């Protein structure tokens, strides 16, 4: 069993090698591959966002905010009553 590594003509850099392979495959696959690359980058962004949310304590309490949002706006309310 040999380990397959994408190789192109020697003399090119590896990055360029990928570009050459990329141009050789079908258009449909090209699009899928491109989308996957973009989605991976996007998803890393979301993952960092999630870690930040956990770190900043947004998951510590998942009940109180549901009550808090039901409070009347107290400033305007007290004016009406006066």
């Amino acid at each position, binding site marked *: *069993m*040999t*380990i*397959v*590594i*994408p190789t192109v003509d020697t003399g090119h850099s590896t990055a360029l090698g*990928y570009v050459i*392979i*990329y141009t050789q*495959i079908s258009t449909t*696959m090209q699009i*899928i*591959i491109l989308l*996957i690359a973009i*989605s*991976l980058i996007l*998803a*890393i962004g*979301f*993952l960092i966002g*999630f*870690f930040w949310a*956990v*770190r900043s304590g947004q*998951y*510590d*309490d998942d*009940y*109180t905010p549901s*009550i*808090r949002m*039901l*409070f*009347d706006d*107290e400033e305007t*309310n*007290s004016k*009406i*009553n006066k």
Partner: protein
Amino acid sequence: MNNNTPHTISKTACYHCGEPCNNTEIQLDELSFCCHGCKTVYQILADNNLTSFYDQFPGQAVQAKQNTNYDFLKNTAIARQLIDFQTDNIATIILELPQIHCSACIWILERLFRFDDGILSSKVNYLKKECTIVFDINKIDLFSLANLLQQIGYGPEFNLNNSKEEKKRFSKSNNYKIGLAGFCFGNIMLLSFPEYMSSPHQPMFTTFGYLKILLALPVLLYAGKDYLLAAKQFLLKRNIGIDLPIAIGMITLFSRSVFEILSGIGEGYLDSFAGFVFLLLIGKWFQEKTYSNIAFDRDYTSFFPISVLRKEADGWDFTAIDQLKSGDIIRVRNEEILPCDSKLLAGNGRIDYSFVTGESKLQSTTIHQNIFAGGKIVGGFVEAEVIHPVAQSRLTQLWNDDVFQKSKDIKEKSIIDFISKYFVFIIIGIAVIGFFYWLPIDIGMAFNVLTSVLIIACPCVLALSIPFIYGNGIRQLSKWNIFLKNTDTLFRLQEIDNIVFDKTGTLTDHSKMQVTFSGISLDDQTKNQITSLCRLSAHPLSQAIVEFLKSGDEVEVNNFSEFPGQGIQGTMDNNFWRLGSEKFILGHTSQTSISRSYIEFNGDILGYFSFEQKLKGEMKNIIENLKTSYILGMTSGDPIPHPEIDQWFAKCEKPLYNQSPQDKLRHIDNLIQQGYSPMMVGDGLNDSGALKQSNVGVVVNHRQNNFTPAADIVVNDEALILLPQLLEYAQWTRRILYGGFVIAALYNGIGLYFALKGLLSPLFAAVLMPLSSITIVVYGFFSINILTQIIFPKNRNDHSHSNR
């Protein structure tokens, strides 16, 4: 609620707390208040322009009742210890406020900054009954903060329990793991997708393969860390648990995939692998999301005070109790708890050992006598020399005693361990047979079959069935105010065949001592004076009188003295008052079964209070109901048999009276020796040893934040009548679990058939494994929800988060 005016509230209800104002109505701004505490809070709110509170929450506030002395917070060293985070000027503290019970509490506590400039922000965690307060230490110190909170009815509770940090860290790390596993799972699946779609192997896929390995590595090493540790445990200690077959499956899945990708044979099973870890973590999260407002893991440290007055070279100062050394001289004031075993030097206080022994009889003290940790000082103060530091005192040793240390591990998880033990052997057996069957035909195929079997038979479904079936069961029960410590409790509940009740708090209504007064009619001034006198005594009857009279004004009492077990006396406004038993006041005893407390004013007898501990009538039916299928017993610390209870327990085990905590523990121990699986139902204080020793300890809770170190189940007072339903529920959850096992076996059977034929493809695994997991999750949810609806009465639906 814009048109809400004070007049919409009925005249006799307190404007602040909504309790009916008896005869002690206090008027202010044309509003009525039931006591001075409530009036004060109203004034504070009015001064700070916060009266809109009453528009939003008419009559829902907390009654300001307590009277804790926060002097120890003046000591900067102690205050420092309590503050969670501090920079130069700004400090953050998380305070435990057990009074939090409704949305009004959140409203008022999150407007603390209106009361004092120094408070920058405050945020309530409703379920944990905690409030995080950020304040400027130059403008307000912890002492003033605690007093402010106490004034508005939320006196914070301080204790040295520092386990909450750990819990938080755990839940956070689990969240990280779920996030990471979910991310990797999704992306690996996307990367696998092109391979499933197009048949010829494209060179690009190899790169994708490396990317997948890169994504799968953190799943194995971080998210799945606990399972790898289980495998290590097995290698070191030969422990077989459900985690071991999971670890085998995980490692096989990962290494075969990496091998396939690197050698270019195939695309690997990394999507199944990550998805599988992700689902397991979700199951874990589901199971371990417990009720943070009920502390099952509290120990003696939460019972002790946080600090005590110690004699220093230049007078008395507060010292944290863990700093105490033998030979230190400490002063414990009225109503405080002695933190360590000491020798009495001076003082007139008496000691109430009810927490340690269960007797509510006060013990008088003499100089040079040894007094023990856990005793509450009543009616005075004591000065004492420390004999043992806190960690070595007798009470602490009791907690460190065998009973409390011995975990219920042996009995725990019995079913699942039993299954997984055989499971491991059977799966490895099948895998090896498959391997040797294929070996002469095709070596590659033989390895393929070996790994396929280990992958497909991985007990993912088995591991998920318990968190989802039992975890959901526990959640449903919490809606009926029955709180189980963990899923293992549900297992042990199924084995129960013997139930022992403790009398106090379970069969009798502790909170509702029925008090009646016979004699002259009492005017307000007299009531105030009697209340003031009774406040100085911690005796349950005195407390009951205070509760009964509901009087607000304090009168100064001089020459107060308490005669343990007899009565109290003191001088107020130059009048001499005495209050106590028949013998104490009249000098003789008559033959009445109901206890009475006579009141004497300058030698004249004004009348008497009579007290009756009410039996919970509804418990009679419960006992009748349980009698048919369980052996019932009763223990009580009371010396005298209660005829009505004896009647309730007719044809059961003979009720046991005059039982010390040790006797109760021994009784449970005997039952276990006889081969029973006993359940103990008690109030959690003097019967904690018995509760801990029993297979399932049920604590009946009157106050949410009670001290329940030994409990497996905490039920609210009114939920105790659901005990028969709870036991039936436990039986049914077992049957549902077996149903889950059948589903797991079916899926594994299908998977094994393909695996043994060497037909397992990555796509097949990627569909079958999540499908089986989802089936079990859905099954667990629906069957438990249906079961809950069938077993529990329907009209109690709105119980869990009701306002009052």
